[in-house]
């Protein structure tokens, strides 16, 4: 006899079977359990029932199949209908999230819960409690998968909602970068919290746009941070992309970092120097610097080395760049690529 069939609490309900008429279910007990539970849920949904037993039922089904989005939605509507404790729900969701890393229904569910909780958060102390517990939980998730896209996009939503452009948030992101300097998600989040901080940023300034309000101290700090990261992992794309992004935000020329970039690159054309390239991204960066400065021959040499030797798989791209140089669109191109802001 099935779990629900034999449960007196569910005597009043007639389960609704799968409606496409399938009857060939596996003889595996696990599968029978799932189909029975789904039958009772269909009946509850048809009757629009919202109750504790429905919560228990959805919890059971989620434990068997956490990806069934209809079940999550019905659970949420039941929670709100019967005014169930959101904090308890969050604790339960934490467990499910830890066991189901790839599931993203959970994160939208979480967002619904926090949205529901938000009006009742009245004091700064209460706010801090939620901030710390959410950050703590996200850190637990990142311990298992530091690049979980759903958690990062939830995190961004959370930062905006609770205005967490603060030290605690920055420290948390830095800790992740300390653990893995190549974590592109953490770099992306850092850019977000630095260049969207309402205290010193132009509201609604786009990511690719120059923002004249940003203090030099912030720009310098970010540049130093990214530079340090390039020394730690010269061939990692993230800090190089980051550097370019920061320079653009601050309206600074790439050439301001020429001395830094040449530490990674020695070109054969320079007198007495043996070729030594410790980062293809540095070479790419320098090609743009020399282009910016009008030193076309050096820029071309760098791009040739990239296409022929240091990044052969993208040869067509490097050849295209050389072509753009020769067309004399040099500085214009760098300006176009880096400075194009889309209104």
């Amino acid at each position, binding site marked *: 006899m099935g779990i629900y069939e034999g449960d007196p609490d569910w005597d009043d309900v007639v389960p609704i079977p799968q*409606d496409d008429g399938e009857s060939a279910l596996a003889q595996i007990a696990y599968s029978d359990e*799932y189909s029975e539970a789904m039958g009772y849920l269909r009946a509850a949904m048809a009757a629009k029932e919202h109750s504790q037993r429905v919560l228990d039922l959805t919890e059971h089904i989620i434990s068997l199949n956490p990806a069934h989005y209809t079940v999550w939605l019905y659970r949420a509507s039941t929670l709100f209908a019967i005014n169930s404790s959101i904090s308890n729900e969050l604790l339960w969701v934490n467990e499910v999230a830890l066991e189901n890393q790839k599931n993203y229904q959970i994160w939208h569910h979480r967002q619904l819960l926090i949205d529901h909780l938000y009006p009742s958060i009245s004091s700064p102390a209460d706010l801090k409690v939620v901030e710390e517990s959410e950050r703590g939980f996200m850190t637990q998730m990142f311990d298992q998968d530091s690049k979980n896209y759903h958690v990062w996009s939830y995190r961004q939503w959370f930062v905006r909602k609770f205005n967490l452009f603060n030290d605690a948030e920055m420290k948390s992101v830095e800790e992740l970068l300390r653990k893995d300097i190549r974590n592109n998600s953490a770099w992306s989040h850092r850019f*977000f919290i630095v260049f969207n901080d309402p205290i010193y940023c132009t509201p609604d300034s786009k990511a690719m746009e120059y923002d004249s309000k940003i203090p030099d101290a912030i720009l310098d700090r970010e540049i130093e941070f990214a530079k340090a990261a390039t020394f730690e992992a010269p061939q990692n794309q993230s800090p190089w992309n980051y550097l370019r992004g920061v320079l653009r935000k601050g309206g600074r020329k790439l050439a301001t970092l020429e001395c830094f970039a040449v530490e990674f690159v020695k070109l054969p054309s320079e007198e007495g120097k043996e070729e030594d390239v410790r980062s293809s991204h540095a070479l790419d960066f320098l090609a743009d610097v020399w282009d910016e400065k009008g030193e076309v021959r050096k820029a071309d040499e760098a791009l040739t080395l990239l296409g022929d030797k240091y990044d052969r798989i993208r040869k067509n791209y490097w050849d295209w760049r050389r072509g753009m140089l020769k067309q004399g669109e040099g500085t214009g191109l760098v300006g176009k690529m880096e400075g194009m802001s889309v209104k």
Partner: protein
Amino acid sequence: MSLVSGPGRATATALPDELQLAIEPHVKYIQSLDSRKDELEYWLTEHLRLNGLYWGLTALHLLGRPDALPRNETIKFVLSCQHDNGGFGAAPGHDAHLLYTCSAIQILAMVDALDDLENLGKGEGGGRVAVSKYIAGLQNQETGTFAGDEWGEEDTRFILCALNALSLLHLLSVVDMNKAVDYIVSCANFDGGYGVSPGTESHSGQIYACVGALRIAGRLDLVNKDKLGRWLSERQVEAGGLNGRPEKLEDVCYSWWVGSSLAMIGRLHWIDGPKLAKYILKCQDPKEGGFADRPGDTVDVFHTVFSIAGLSLLEFPGVEDVDPC
């Protein structure tokens, strides 16, 4: 069409030097998927059933075997997923959602059954109109993006779902195109990519959605193609495959998300095509059929369709042409 994985495995070592596309095994693999109802995984992937059908059918069309799945049953199944609000769920009894509504329309268009939708479709106004009303109702009137369903989860993928379905129904006029376009533009990141919402990490899947949507809107002029193309070209790793973000593992499905994004902005040649094709073929099981995410893993229909679509972009012989969007 279930999403049960396997039984095949990608076996790079079993292939001859000249890598071949094993068309017949792939066709048989796709045909066999719905017959595995005795497996638990069949039921656990029910929430993706309509997507699975779309993936399988698309793969068959690309392999030049559009009739390999029974047309009438396909139409019947798709229509049985429709709700009274005009939207489609993943399977009968599953709530309506944009993702499945898009798959439903794509399938019906592929098997030339939009007339059946007119005659038998549910919802206010019936047919194409009802579906378009459902979709239009999901647009965020303030920001221009789209929710996936009444519960409001927003994601740039849903913008593409909406525009893709509406363009097939010739009813793009029901949405605020300018707002949708502005929203996508606000998602352009410092590295040239796009994320799920403004400021979120650039991700190849989200980029595909944003670029695809802009293409349907006729506004690819708003994309910094050189910068995006550069970021996308960086997805190719030494082994030839593509990843979705910097420092992540390559996965054969990115052959499509990245490949078609590059194709849409005219820069597919910025990656090494032959190297990619070789990698894709290493992900196939030439005996049992199907493709896996990377060599040695278990195959599934999702990776199968995106591998074949990737090969089509690369103009691999034996594969039909695919529209990048």
